[in-house]
């Protein structure tokens, strides 16, 4: 009997870990572009996630622009439609604010401009959060889809032990993996992707090679924003949220990026997956309040024992 429950719990944690983990992975890729590759400390990443959620919410539930797609397809197409919106927003943010405290301007300066980035992105984060409160209100909302209360049942696998697969999470999982693959291919194999990575890796050298570094940064920042926003839109189908939701996830994102090894897109994804697993499995043994504490403990241990990340190759030079 006990074994049965244990098996059921472990299997459910496993499937939830995979689905939620991959959505976290997508979210982490966004920060991986901005923080891992461009080395911009972005405190507003959680708010970009929040904007993705609300973009999807207004497109699908509140604004009903996409309501003709129906309650099954609408929410997920809405999540993808958040990407171009937040991409433009991110690119504009970069053009007018972030570019002034990062990139070529701060190469070789004291502390590499981190103080400036910290303050500016913290400011953006405060404006978006509190501005969001003024615009969207502070009552929790959600993107409604019947899928979030339906599940596939697998099993019973062992006596009565059954695996529940939430349909909303499952679809979100597929969309997340698809988006991650598309982005990965774009960055690895296209000319644009190579230019972006070159500009991020060494802006000075990239300039000499004729790459428009400012533009490349703008696009990369926009992409990082847009990708995280898609993840936000996907999450909006199975959680409820307020304009202050960002804080809960910004740490998860940083954990994922560092876990995966800075500077690696692929690594950021796996870092996010790992965080998802840790979260779901810690739920088996820890009280709910300590689940997030478990993430931090794992994060600290990784940073201290293996600062190059679980999947990274080389440590940052001193």
């Amino acid at each position, binding site marked *: 009997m006990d074994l049965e429950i244990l098996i059921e719990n472990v299997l459910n944690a496993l499937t939830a870990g995979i689905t939620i983990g991959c959505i976290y992975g997508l979210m982490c890729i966004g920060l991986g572009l901005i923080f891992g590759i461009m080395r911009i400390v972005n405190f507003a990443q959680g708010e970009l996630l929040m904007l993705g959620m609300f973009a999807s919410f207004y497109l699908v539930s509140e604004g009903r622009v996409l309501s003709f797609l129906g309650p099954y397809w609408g929410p997920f197409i809405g999540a993808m439609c958040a990407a171009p919106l937040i991409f433009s927003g991110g690119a504009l943010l970069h053009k007018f604010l972030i570019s002034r*405290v990062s990139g070529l301007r701060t190469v070789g300066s004291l502390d590499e401009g981190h103080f400036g980035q910290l303050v500016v992105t913290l400011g953006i984060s405060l404006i978006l959060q509190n501005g969001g409160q003024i615009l969207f209100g502070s009552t929790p909302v959600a993107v409604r889809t019947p899928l979030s209360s339906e599940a596939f049942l697998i099993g019973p696998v062992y006596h009565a032990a059954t695996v529940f697969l939430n349909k909303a999470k499952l679809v979100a999982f597929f969309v997340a993996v698809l988006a991650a693959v598309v982005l990965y291919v774009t960055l690895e194999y296209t000319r644009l992707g190579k230019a972006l990575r070159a500009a991020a890796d060494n802006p000075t050298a990239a300039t000499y090679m004729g790459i428009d570094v400012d533009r490349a940064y703008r696009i990369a920042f926009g992409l990082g924003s847009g990708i995280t926003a898609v993840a936000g839109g996907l999450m909006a189908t199975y959680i409820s949220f307020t304009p202050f939701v960002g*804080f809960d996830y910004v*740490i998860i994102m940083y954990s994922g990026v560092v876990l995966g090894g*800075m500077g690696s897109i692929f690594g950021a994804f796996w870092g996010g997956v790992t965080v998802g697993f840790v979260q779901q499995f810690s739920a088996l043994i820890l009280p709910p309040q300590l689940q997030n*504490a478990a993430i931090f403990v794992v994060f600290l241990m990784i940073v*201290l024992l293996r600062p190059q990340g679980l999947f990274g190759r080389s440590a*940052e030079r*001193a």
Partner: protein
Amino acid sequence: MKEGAGPHLRRNLTVLAVVSVVYLAVAMFVTNSYYQLILTLVPVWALFGVSWNILSGYGGQLSFGHASFFGIGAYTVTLSVIYWSLSPWLGIPLGMVLAGLAAIAIGFPTFRLRGHYFALSMLAYPLAILYVMQYLGFQEVSMPMHRENGLRFMEFSEPRVYTLIAVLLLVGGVVVSLVIENSRFGLALLAIRQNELAAEAAGINARLWKMRSLVVSGMMGAVAGGFYARVLLVVTPDSVFGMLVSAQAVVVTLFGGVASVWGPVIGAAILVPLAETLQAELGTYLPGIQGVVYGIAIIAIMLLSPDGLFWTIGDRWFRREAPQPIPDLEPLPPPARRASAHAAGPLLQVEGLSRAFGGLRAVSEVSFSIAEGEILGIIGPNGAGKTTLFNVLNGVLDADEGSARLDGQAMLGRKTFEVCRMGVGRTFQVVRSFPRLPVLDNVIVGAYGAGLSDREAIAQAVRALHQVGLQDRAGVAAGQLTNRQLRLMELARALAGNPRLLLLDETLAGLGREECDDVLGVLARVRAQGMTICIIEHTMHAMMRLADRFVVLDHGRVLATGLPRAVVEDASVIEAYLGKKWLARRDA
């Protein structure tokens, strides 16, 4: 205390006294209890900013998680009143002790990390504590009232008393910060922030100073947190361990002026009332308006005045303090050479030294020795392993095999600053200066690193500046020097530690012919005073004039050793430098 810091300190203390008295005088006329609360919170947040500034401003160790200490202070005071009826007058010191211990526990693992990793790890600590506090059931803890025993429990019916206490606490914090700023503590932190490796090579134990700054900073943060809890009477995990608390410290400091004792004070004096007033006036119609305005304010200040208000105003309306004349001290006579234990043996004996990077043997079984008073030139083509050899010798890199003895004492396996204290000075291929510090302070860092007292350190630094002929530039920021002057300053910094052996890495690189001659003259003078020098150099003609003996490295191995004339005619050396074809043509 640094020499010449007296007037500076006295001026700052006067300003502090005047500002505090005026502030308190104004506070006495305020009767609205809401404004009284704001007047109490300004010094509290300023104190927290001052505390953050010590670690992150002076030391450059960016901490996103100072709320750990604030929260520890707040919870210690509150819980000790509840469970032990302990007076906050004792609870705050208890919080300081706990925060100091927490700082050691946090710093011990976390200082192994640098840059981004350090900053992020610091972020994780308060949030982890936050969840633990929620789990333990301390979601919302109220301070019990003790009306009959108000003084003991820091409970006053007159709110202005809190303002008074807050100001006094802030004054204490500012004084501590001023003392740090004007002592070797502050200089060590500034040096570490600007170039940690250079600070280590100059004999500064970076780990230790960072740890000290974290402990001081954490204890001060706990005071702010403990008093905050006493004033607000209710403590929740979010209100004392939350990210906004950490952000508050960062924001008031960066807004006001980073690495200045006045920065956090200015920042808090402007931002705290602004945010509170907006909340009170507009909060009901536009919830969150104070967050928006706050955000706009800090972005604007960052773009318009990146170092903070204090520095921008200082630059625009007051000319920066005229460069202070160097203290008028007679340069001391060169100190007696440390007596050699083995007068007969060589000063430096290197045997079978190897270091590999993966499969690349950068330094391979290198052996050589240097006699006291000798100048040994290390030459070799690019990638021959010359700089790696130095890095291994002074502890920047670990050796794989071999030994190196300075006057019979093992050098390997020691940390960089320890090697420096054994009497090994080092300069770098690319000059590592502390660009924002004046030349004299740059050099004093070297003297402090050798463990000299304040007075001796200044005297030694002045002597070193005279030795290299930079005495006229002593008050100029190092960032404004020419390449030649920078090279000389780095040399002076190494000399100020009174070393027995100098390791000079391409001191002549990038210098023009005349500049080169100038530096060579200085080196000859230093040598005439009995210094032993090991120098890496490419410029052959310069080396021919300077060095007594050559060691030629190629692909990490010693190719030849001997007198300059003999070495440059050695066929294998010519081949390594110029290739086989050249050799064939010469012989033809």
